[in-house]
């Protein structure tokens, strides 16, 4: 510990602290621009110059290490003169366009200029003008305003993992720019908008739509992945205008994924459903809530009565709140309906665990592992901020390895990687299991059949990273969780974890996957395999949100009655009988349980649009209409307390109830690798225009094969290909992805182009179009 005195206040700080750290710890504010606690120290803005006793000249607080007995003066004449001098320099070439600048009101330069600037400038020369850059659909630039703090450059390199922005040229001609002809395509790119201390980088979707001081700040929780990022939703006149991160070191730190940041655009979409609709005589008509609810109640009651309880199935989005799922399940129980399924993208339901599947540890603990094996995951796209966190861990020594059907760049060092066919994740894992068993001389439980398994060098290398670690994790990604042999993948991963002393992690795919499993909204398996007489859809679009979109759509189309509860109109117009406008997460109070089993409740941030109602209220009224008892809830909190009563932690478990037999199988022929693309996860994200204009969204419109497979199939990059799967077909442009094995055809799901195709992973045929 070192002793330091700042502005006369004595304190002790740990060795290695900077003057800035020390000042922050006692709440002394030192003005700064380039310094950011999560980024490397650049010391280039010079705004944080302070006086240090015995130093001949002022020193930058951000980069000056504390020495024992140091005396620092942050507001002495020398310090303030230096700070004012820097401010003068920053302002000479900065445009005085605050009245038309989006950053106005939340601009660090503007704020500090009040304290350190002059009311007029001695600089009489022409100001610098810098050409704007095209950074893509999310980030707008006004590069003339740039003060060259390099935060954005350091962010792309250090946090996002690839330096998509750089400083070109020299002296006052220095410019921040992307690679020539390229945009910024990181899945967490929007954070540079928050980092930019001036109005050089602003939000393109938000641009010119409101002034920051007109906005109210409301807390909420991210609804598009399993992390549960904390949000600040900024609203004006009951409209969501912008979403920003709310700092929570344990979850999202100070970052936010682009998906959570920009998907709000869909909330104001013209596709919003604003009143209940009934189809009568083949014609859609607006109805009042009472009529619509009575129609639903009577219809469902009648079908159950005529065809039995299993003739009705409910499919809910795993992004629905705990309250919604619980009330829905309770309502269905009243009708006798058991099949309430929030995991429609899953294909294999045989892996039953003793509790709800979860990360097996906290997010912070995950980052402290010494070794992590990713199994079937496009982690950067599935959980952008988790990928970011692990990237930082790798720098501190984490050994990251993967058994994957693709070689997508994690933008970090990967210790070992085993590439497999998408239908061979099990066989990949078995190789690692065998390698571990051989290296440790351990016996493998009898339900794991290792006969015929040949250990590759890659599998041996992966085994090596896991053996002998006190903290290691085997993590099953979305591709694994949605695979047709999930139970086998699970059982093999469980054995691998047991053999190596590692934890098994099943990161939640959606905002409330863990909550849904806790409530028991995982009944019925694939409810589209045997078409039902009636379906109730809560926030799902079966053609996009089911494992086999074509099968789901066909099942919906043949049903006698389909009730859709959704914030949006959709192609439900084709198959639904009733459409009820229910609130997206911004218009209702509710709770999500994130991947680490943490329940986070939030309030509605805006009034429901039009006649929209929170789904939990709809179920409450339906309960009353049906005359069920126990539906007298006055608030969502009452439902939550009933739904999550007791300790959550004790109800989480990744241990299989009964062993699942695992055996290697051979696989040949063309196989589809059907991932859910980063901007195809749910009905809100799919309607966010700026995200849909991104490079990632374009990539999801292509068919990807490796060069050898392309030439075998007669395909050329940029040309068109026709694919057939089940009874459906699609035409896609071809791109080459040499991170795939031969015969693997990567065709994304959850996009309009591919909605007629079948299973996410399965046989597919391809021809040149």
């Amino acid at each position, binding site marked *: 510990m070192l002793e330091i005195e700042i502005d006369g206040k004595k304190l002790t700080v740990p060795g290695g602290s900077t003057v800035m750290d020390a000042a922050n710890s006692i709440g002394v504010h030192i003005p700064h621009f380039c310094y950011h606690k999560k980024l490397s*120290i*650049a*010391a*280039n*803005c*010079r*705004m944080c*110059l302070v006086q240090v006793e015995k130093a*001949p*000249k*002022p020193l*930058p607080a951000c*980069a000056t*290490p504390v020495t024992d007995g140091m005396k620092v003066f942050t507001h002495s004449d020398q310090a303030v003169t*230096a700070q004012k*001098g*820097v401010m*003068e*320099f*920053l302002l*000479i*070439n900065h445009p005085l366009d605050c009245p038309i600048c989006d950053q106005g009101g939340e601009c660090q330069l503007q704020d500090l200029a009040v304290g350190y600037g002059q009311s007029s400038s*001695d*600089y009489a*020369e022409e100001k610098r003008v810098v050409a704007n850059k095209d950074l893509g659909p999310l980030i707008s630039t006004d590069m003339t305003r740039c*003060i*060259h703090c390099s935060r954005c450059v350091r962010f792309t390199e250090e946090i996002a993992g690839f330096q998509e922005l*750089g*400083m070109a*040229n*020299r*002296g*006052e*001609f*220095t410019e921040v720019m992307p690679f020539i002809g390229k945009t910024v395509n990181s899945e967490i790119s929007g954070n540079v908008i928050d980092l930019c201390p001036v109005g050089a980088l602003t939000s393109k979707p938000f641009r010119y739509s409101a002034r920051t001081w007109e906005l109210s700040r409301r807390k909420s929780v991210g609804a598009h992945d399993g992390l549960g990022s904390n949000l600040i939703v900024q609203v004006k006149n009951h409209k969501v205008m912008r979403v920003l991160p709310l700092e929570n070191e344990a979850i999202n730190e100070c970052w936010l994924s682009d998906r959570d940041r920009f998907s709000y655009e869909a909330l104001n979409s013209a596709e919003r459903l604003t009143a209940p609709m009934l189809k009568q005589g083949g014609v859609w008509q607006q109805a009042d809530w009472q009529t619509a609810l009575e129609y639903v109640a009577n219809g469902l009651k009648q079908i159950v009565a005529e065809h039995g309880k299993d003739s009705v199935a409910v499919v809910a989005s795993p992004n629905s709140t705990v309250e919604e799922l619980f009330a829905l399940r309770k309502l269905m129980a009243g009708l006798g309906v058991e099949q309430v399924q929030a995991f429609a993208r899953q294909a294999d339901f045989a892996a039953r665990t003793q509790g709800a599947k979860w990360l097996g540890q906290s997010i912070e603990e995950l980052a402290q592992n010494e070794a992590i094996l990713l199994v079937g995951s496009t982690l950067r796209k599935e959980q952008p901020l988790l990928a970011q966190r692990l990237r930082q861990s790798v720098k501190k020594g984490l050994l990251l390895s993967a058994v994957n059907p693709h070689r997508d760049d994690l933008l970090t060092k990967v210790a070992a990687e085993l590439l497999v066919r998408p239908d061979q994740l099990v066989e990949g894992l078995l190789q690692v299991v065998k390698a571990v068993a051989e290296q440790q001389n351990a016996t493998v439980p009898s339900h794991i059949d290792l006969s015929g398994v040949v250990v590759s060098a890659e599998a041996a290398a992966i085994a090596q990273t896991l053996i002998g670690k006190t903290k290691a994790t085997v993590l099953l990604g979305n591709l694994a969780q949605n695979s047709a042999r999930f139970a086998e993948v699970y059982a093999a991963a469980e054995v691998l974890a047991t053999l190596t002393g590692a934890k098994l992690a099943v990161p939640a795919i959606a905002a409330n996957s863990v909550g849904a499993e806790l409530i028991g909204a995982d009944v019925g398996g694939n409810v589209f395999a045997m078409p039902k007489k009636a379906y109730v859809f809560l926030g799902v679009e079966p053609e996009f949100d089911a494992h086999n979109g074509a099968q789901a759509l066909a099942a919906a189309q043949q049903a006698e009655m389909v009730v859709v509860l959704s914030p949006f109109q959709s192609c439900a117009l084709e198959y639904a009988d009733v459409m009820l406008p229910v609130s997206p997460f911004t218009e209702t109070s509710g709770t999500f349980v994130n991947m680490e089993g943490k329940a986070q409740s939030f309030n509605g941030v805006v009034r429901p649009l039009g006649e929209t109602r929170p789904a939990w209220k709809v179920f409450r009224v339906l309960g009353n209409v049906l005359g069920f008892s126990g539906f007298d809830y006055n608030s969502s909190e009452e439902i939550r307390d009933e739904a999550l009563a007791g300790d959550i932690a004790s109800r989480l478990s990744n241990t299989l109830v009964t062993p699942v037999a695992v055996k290697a199988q051979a696989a040949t022929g063309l196989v589809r690798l059907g991932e859910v693309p980063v901007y195809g996860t749910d009905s809100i994200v799919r309607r966010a225009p700026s995200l849909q204009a991104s490079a990632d969204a374009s990539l999801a419109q292509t068919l990807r094969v490796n060069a050898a497979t392309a030439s075998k199939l007669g395909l050329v990059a940029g040309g068109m290909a026709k694919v057939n799967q089940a009874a459906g077909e699609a035409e896609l442009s071809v791109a080459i992805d040499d991170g795939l094995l031969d015969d693997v055809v990567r065709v994304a799901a959850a996009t309009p182009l591919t909605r007629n195709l079948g299973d996410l992973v399965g046989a597919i045929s391809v021809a040149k179009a």
Partner: protein
Amino acid sequence: MTVYVKGVVFGDVDFDNPDCWRLEEYVKRGGYAALKKIINEKISQDDIIAEMKTSSLRGRGGAGFPTGLKWSFMPRSFPGQKYLVCNTDEGEPGTFKDLDIIVYNPHALIEGMIIGGYAMGITVGYNYIHGEVFEAYQRFEEALEEARAAGFLGDNILGSDFSFQLHAHHGYGAYICGEETALLESLEGKKGQPRFKPPFPASFGLYGKPTTINNTETFASVPYIVREGGQKFLELGKPNNGGTKLFSVSGHVNRPGNYEIPLGTPFADLLEMCGGMRDGKKLKAVIPGGSSAPVLPADIMMQCTMDYDSIAKAGSMLGSGAVIVMDETVSMVSALERLSYFYHEESCGQCTPCREGTGWLYRVVHRIAKGEGRPEDLDLLSRVGDNIAGRTICALGDAAVFPVRGMLKHFRHEFEDLIKDAQTAKPL
């Protein structure tokens, strides 16, 4: 350029012989004897560093830091890779001495670096050569090949267990890469921008490893010190200013060129060696140590001796030893305009005061030179300068300000006259 007077570095080099730079000629002049002595007599690292301290050799790149002391900072017991780097990124306007060293006597530098590697327990060295002198770079590469072929460089030098690899690196011509940490960044393949210090290169240098960086002339002086002893080197000069030093004399003298003379030689003598002032004009001012050094008027300069202490006492710096001589016809406003343009052009743009301030300085001087100066401009120049100097990551900011301060201190009236004329000429 031509070297007119020879000292420690150029010794017996016969400039008329086109092969004077070759290893064979160098060995004939007693070259590599120092290295052989170290290897054969197994002289200890401590003894070499002590000898360097005795010699009072000070860094010839500009800062004048005692070389022996710098070498003693290298953590010799550090277990990982350590690096030795030579700074031949000679970019200071007025300086052209290092170029002549690698053209005419490259083996003195190579031998000096090998000895440095030996003394500090370093096995890999780089010579970063300025981007605009490609032929010199090629010659240095040839010299390296000769040294390797002769067993002076590479694995198991002269049959000992000491190995040293030396590589040449051709820079891209940015002035800022002469700043040692910017040089390291550039050498690593990054944009040449100075690093914030601490940490200093001795603990966190090239690729984050302990690194010692010296100037070309500094290394080239090392063989002499080892061969002849530090005391003899010191006695060539004067206390605290050991040895001879190369001065690159340019400007209005009859014979511009390199002069390797003992430190402490009166400037008047140097001027005489240069054949005196061109066309018999009167001496007006001298920039004694490269463009970053404040200008000194003739009367002060004629009292100075050419060494670190004397020039510092007079209010300037010996710097790299670039002596820019100006006669009575020179407009000091125009001279400063050109200097300020250089720093504006060469600022790396990393930190605010230098990025924004060097352009501002140039524009104000430029408008004074154009006859558009304003009465408040001289105060403005001082104020802007004060806001740059001492506030930046590296010394380029200071280097941009020192010439302004020097000019305003000694030749303020020239600026004032021009501004006054501009004001009178203004239409009412």
